[in-house]
C-alpha cells in the first residue's frame, strides 16, 4: 500500500506544518516515508509544494511521478490547479477556496474554481473562515489537514491529532487546542462530500 501526496500553497501559508504532522503520524505507524520540501528563495511569496510519499514498503523517488498522485492538499485554489498533471484518475483534490492574491494577473477566481470542478473527487472548503469560526484564525492549514484526513486512507485521524499535539507542544497547550479544534472542524466539514 502506498499513498502519494502533493501539498501546495504560497510561501508562508504553513504547508510545512502539515507535512511535519503527517510525517510524525507516519513515523508512529511505522510507515516508509519520503518528503521533498521547498526551502530557500522560492519561499518568499512564491508558490511552494511538498511531495509526500507514504507506504508500507520502501520508496525510491523523492518526487511523485505524473498521473500517480493520490491526493493534492492545497492551501490555495490556483496552487491546487498547478499540480493537476500529477493527479491520478482516482485521485482527490482537497483545497482551500480562499485565493491568495499577491500577483497582478491572478485569474478570475470563478474560472479557477470552475476548472477545479473537472476533478471528480474534489473537496473544497473555506479554511480561512472555518478557522475563524472556531477561533483559531491562524490554523487554516490544520482545517485543511482535518478535511484531508477522511481521504488520506493510510493514516489514522487519531494519529494525526497526536501529531498535532507533538508538533505544536513547544508552543503551549492553547496553541495545541486551537490547532486540534481547527483539525476537527475541517474533518467535520469534509463529511459533507461523498467519498
Amino acid at each position, binding site marked *: 500500500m502506498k499513498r502519494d501526496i502533493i501539498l501546495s500553497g504560497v510561501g508562508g501559508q504553513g504547508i510545512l506544518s502539515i507535512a511535519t504532522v503527517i510525517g510524525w503520524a507516519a513515523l508512529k505507524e511505522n510507515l516508509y516515508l519520503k518528503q521533498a520540501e521547498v526551502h530557500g528563495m522560492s519561499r518568499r511569496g512564491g*508558490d511552494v509544494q511538498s511531495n509526500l510519499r507514504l507506504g508500507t514498503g520502501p520508496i525510491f*523517488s523523492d518526487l511523485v*511521478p505524473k498521473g500517480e498522485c493520490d491526493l493534492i492538499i492545497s492551501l490555495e485554489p490556483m496552487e491546487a490547479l498547478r499540480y493537476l498533471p500529477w493527479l491520478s484518475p482516482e485521485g482527490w483534490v482537497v483545497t482551500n477556496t480562499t485565493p491568495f492574491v499577491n500577483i497582478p494577473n491572478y485569474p478570475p477566481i470563478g474560472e479557477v474554481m470552475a476548472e477545479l470542478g473537472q476533478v471528480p473527487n474534489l473537496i473544497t472548503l473555506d479554511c480561512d473562515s472555518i478557522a475563524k469560526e472556531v477561533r483559531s484564525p491562524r490554523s487554516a492549514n490544520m482545517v485543511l489537514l482535518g478535511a484531508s484526513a477522511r481521504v488520506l486512507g493510510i493514516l489514522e485521524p487519531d494519529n494525526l491529532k497526536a501529531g498535532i499535539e507533538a508538533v505544536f507542544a513547544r508552543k503551549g497547550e492553547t496553541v495545541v487546542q486551537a490547532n486540534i479544534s481547527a483539525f476537527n472542524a475541517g474533518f467535520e466539514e469534509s463529511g459533507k462530500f461523498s467519498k
Partner: protein
Amino acid sequence: MEEKLLLLGDEALALGALHAGLSGVYAYPGTPSTEITEYIQAHPLTKERGIHSDWCTNEKTAMEAALGMSYAGKRALVCMKHVGMNVCADAFVNSAITGANGGLVIAACDDPSQHSSQNEQDSRFYADFAMMPCFEPSSQQEAYDMVRGAFDYSEANHIPVLMRLTTRMAHSRAVVRTVGSAGSLTGIRPQNKMHFPPEELARFWVTLPGISRQRVKILSEQQDQFLHDSELSGRNPFTDGPNHEMGIVACGIAWNYLMENYPDGCPYPVLKVTRYPFPKGLLRQMAATCKTIMVVEEGQPLIEERLRGLLYTEAEGASGVKVKGRLDGTLPRNGELNPDILREALGMEVRQVFPEAARTVPRPPSLCQGCGHRDFYTALNAVLAKYEGARVFGDIGCYTLGYMPPFHAIHSCVEMGASLTMAIGAADSGVWPSVGVIGDSTFTHSGMTGLLDAVNSKADITLCISDNLTTGMTGGQDSAGTGKLEAICEAIGVEKEHIRTIVPLPRNYPEMERVIEEEINYHGVSVVICRRECIQTAKRHAK
C-alpha cells in the same frame, strides 16, 4: 542504541558527522546546504562536546579554518552550496596537496534546475579536478552512514573527502536509523585528541614548489588506490538483469528515479554509483556485455563524457558500444531529473491524465511586504530618475529581487561581491552614476576587499549597503558584520563624512533621497548604509 528519526538529507549528514566524532563545522549559509550547520548548532551533543559551529564570513575562511582543525588532528566538516566551492576553490584544491590529518569532509550541495542559484555547476568536477574522493549518497540513510565512512577514509588516507548532495537529497526527509540516541553515547565515536601530522607527512603542509611537487606525485599515485577502494567499497553495487541490450549507470539520487520505474526490479544490468573515482573496471565489465550504456546523472555529464573516452581509447573507437545520456539527447542537457524524465528515456509512457490547467500563472518570489529593501529601492529609484545613464550593480541576496517589478532597480547580479567591483570597472569606463547595491552579509563575505580597491583607486562610485542585520535569503542566520559596518568602511579608508546611515521607512523617503543624492554627487568613494532589521527575523525576535 539505535534510534529512528525523520531527517532531511542535510540533517542526516549533520547527525552522521556528529556521531563520527566531529569537533567543528565551518560554513557560510547557502541553499540547499544551510540546514546541515543549523542542525549541528541546535544539537545537544554540540554543546556537550564543545563543537565549534559559529557561521563563518565566507566559504574560503570556512575551508581554511577546517583545514587548520584537521592539521591539529581533529575531525572537521565544511558546508556550502555549490557556488561556494568557487569561493573556497583555492583552499579546497590545495587541501588535497597538504592532505588531511584529522578527518576532513567538505559537504557541497548542488542545485540542479537552479531552484535558488545562478548556475547548476556540478561539484563532482571539483573533486575530480582536485584528485579527491567524492561520496554521493542516494538516500538520507546513506547520507548518515557515508559521512562517517568519509571521515574514516579521510583520516586513513590523509586526504579530504567531498560529500556531494543535490537539492532533492538535501531537502527531502526520510526515516534514518542512527547508531546512537540522544540519551546514550553507544555507537557514537569519541572526538579525536589533538595531534599533529606524522613526521613523514608534516612537510607537505608547506606547499613550496619543491615540496609540493613530491606531494602531487604521491597524490597521482594514490589515484589507483582510491579507484580500487571505490570499486571494492560496496558503494558502487552492480545488479545484473536479464536484458543486456542496455546497461544503466545511475549516480546518486538518479538511481531512485530509475528504480521508481521498475518496482519489481530493473530488467537491465544496473551499476549504481555513489562513490568516486567512478568505478572504471565495473564500467568496462558492463561495456563488455551490453550494446548500449545509458548514463543517468543528476548534474552535468561527468561519467558520460569519461565513459565515451574510456570506450574509445580501449577499442580504438570500434567498441561498438553506444553511450546514451545527456549529451545525445536521451536525457535533457540541463536541469534536475525526475521519475518522468527517466520514464520517457526508457521508452515508457508518462502516465499523466489531467492536462496542465489553463488558469494558472507563475507566482515568482518577491520581497516581503514591509521589507526595508523595498523602501531602499523606492528611494534609490526616485533619485536615479534624475540621472541619465545611471547604472546599478546588484549582488546576491533577497535584494536581487529588486530586479523584478515594480522596482526594476538593478542592472546586474553575478556572484557574491560583484556589485561594487563591477561598479568600479564601469566607473573607470565612464559610467556615472555608478552605484553598487550589496547586503550586509554579502559585503563581509566578498565585498570588503573590493572596497579597498575602490578606495585605493579613488573610484567614483556610491556603494549602498542594504543592511538588514542578518543573512536573510537563507532564513536569517547571523551576519558577520552586524554592528561593525561603519567601522569596517572607515578602517578600509572611506572618508568618514561619506559613510552615511539611513533608516529605510516610507516616512524617511525625503531624507533618504537627499542623502543618496548627496553621495552620488560626491566624486569619490561613498557608502550609504541603509539599515533596518529583516522583518522575518524581527517577527521571530518579537515572539
